[in-house]
């Protein structure tokens, strides 16, 4: 009886193993090709249209001559997303706190969790329709306005904030909560002084991801903000945004306008990627 008596793996099985490993590697490579191609073409076609005037002029809107830049689109996106964040992040963290600190395993908390999950699957165009029906058609403070777009975006950011926050709030050790409670702290102090500070990096990560998501959305804005050309700080007016401008530029027959779409696309992806990378950097540090 020696260990060498183990039979070697038959060639047929070994060959199949090799082939399947190759298939899995191939799948991974195929999955990464689109990312490389999209970023390559964005840089290749978008960088050329980047210039100082590209970022300092507004789209002219005229069919001839200089099409103008993307200043109003960048500012519009930042304004609308900022307002959407102001709405969705406090509400989202509040709901997550309810789920982890009060609701826990209760039936009602289960229902909330379920519908928040369902909300993540609702197409963003449907959120746009919701706001269009309830706020635009009924002319609540004007027809198409920037703040309505922010409300639509906050609806689709909300479930991301809730689920992201809930996951990190659950990671706060219950021994910390119990220690604070045993020292006689009331619940609200435990939440504000122990739970929230401990979970802060994770909460920031989830919020940044939600902001990144909201920033790239086009469909809800079409139904709520409509379009504009000029720069405005008035959230009660129509506004230009990066996604809607790219969308209208795609269908434009002029090459200069299409070039602007590439430049704007590169700017949008850069903004979203910066938010994503920041979120990941914070998440990594909080784990370590």
């Amino acid at each position: 009886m020696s260990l060498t008596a183990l039979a070697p793996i038959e060639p047929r099985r070994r060959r199949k193993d090799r082939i399947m490993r190759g298939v899995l590697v191939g799948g991974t490579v195929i999955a990464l090709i689109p990312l490389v191609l999209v970023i390559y073409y964005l840089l290749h076609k978008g960088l050329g249209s980047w210039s100082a005037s590209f970022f300092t002029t507004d789209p002219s809107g005229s069919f001839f001559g200089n099409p103008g830049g993307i200043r109003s689109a960048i500012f519009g996106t930042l304004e609308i997303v900022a307002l959407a964040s102001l709405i969705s992040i406090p509400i989202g963290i509040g709901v997550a706190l309810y789920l982890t600190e009060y609701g826990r395993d209760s039936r009602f908390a289960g229902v909330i969790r379920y519908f928040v999950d369902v909300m993540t699957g609702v197409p963003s165009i449907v959120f746009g329709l919701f706001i269009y029906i309830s706020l635009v058609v009924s002319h609540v403070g004007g027809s198409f306005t920037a703040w309505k777009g922010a409300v639509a975006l906050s609806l689709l950011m909300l479930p991301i904030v809730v689920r992201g926050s809930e996951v990190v709030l659950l990671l706060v050790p219950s021994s910390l909560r119990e220690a604070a409670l045993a020292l006689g702290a009331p619940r609200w102090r435990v939440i504000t002084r122990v739970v929230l500070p401990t979970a802060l990096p994770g909460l920031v990560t989830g919020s940044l991801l939600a902001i990144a998501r909201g920033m790239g959305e086009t469909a809800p804005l079409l139904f709520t903000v409509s379009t504009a050309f000029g720069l405005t700080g008035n959230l009660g007016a129509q506004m230009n945004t990066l996604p809607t401008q790219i969308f209208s530029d795609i269908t434009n027959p002029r090459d200069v306008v299409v070039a602007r779409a590439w430049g704007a696309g590169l700017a949008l992806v850069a903004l979203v990627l910066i938010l994503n990378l920041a979120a990941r950097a914070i998440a990594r540090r909080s784990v370590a």
Partner: protein
Amino acid sequence: VESSATPAPGGRSVLERSPASRLPDRILKWGLTTLAALILAVLAYFFIRLIGQSRGAFSSFGLSFVFGNDWDPSRNIYHGFALLFGTLVTSVIALVVGVPVAISAALYLTELCPRRLRAPLSGLVDLLAAVPSVVYGLWGVFVLAPKLLPVEKWLASTFSAIPFVGGTPALYNYFIAGLVLAIMILPIVSAIAREVMATVPSEHKEAALALGATRWEMIRIAVLPYARPGITGGAMLGLGRALGETIAVVVLIGDAPVVGHSIFTQGYSLAAVIANEFGEAASTPTHSSALFAAGLVLFVLTLLVNIVARRYITRGQRGRRGTGGTGLAVVATHAGGGE
């Protein structure tokens, strides 16, 4: 301890807080509960309003709104089967192309990949979700569609025996829209598959390897059966995304309200028709009602798909430790796309 529990003035134990100091606690508790309840109320309100707005289309066209095939705003007739057809065909193409790639990537990243490469490579796959759908649309229109046209022509002539393949490919068609959708659903399907595969007990895998299984055999007999419900759920979440995607589809599907005879012909989808015709429809009540009804059909469709997906995913998680489950995967892949 006993002595300190003697009643204080007012009949309270000294260990008990005064009603005044308990007030902030009550306020916070009921405030947060109301906030949570408010979400349900708002969702219900929107749903009811959407039904109300689309009633006009359903009362004029009945079931033929969904199953009739004649969408013609110039004659004010809205039978939207071609739209539903386009939504389903592009989503099926997205699943057929995207899911196998997503699963192979997930298997490679969890089972074969060197440990050091695992996190960066997974991060790169997740980054696909960070690209906004309008950028996928831009790239699809000016790069993918023109570059793939010769390939589509070759596919159409070589595989013309297969039903729904053949004819002369149009520049924008179901196939190209489905292909971009496949790219867009890849990160979520892959992230959920990865998360489920990571929960496969190492005892199962080690047992398979100890019995002399090769890596692939271990994957086939230990990993895949265990992870199947979760993978199915992830694929269905991807399907939900594909069904509702608007902007990339509207520029790539060709915007022709007909039921195509091949995947290389122009078509239309529910979401695309809403985005495209919404401006002109505002002046015609029947038309706008038809678009709301299209939105309602889309909403109900994605809702059903998502509910089934959740069921699979929770079944896959039953009996396992930890809450949240796919929460992180969903969050990580929500940073873009899925529009």
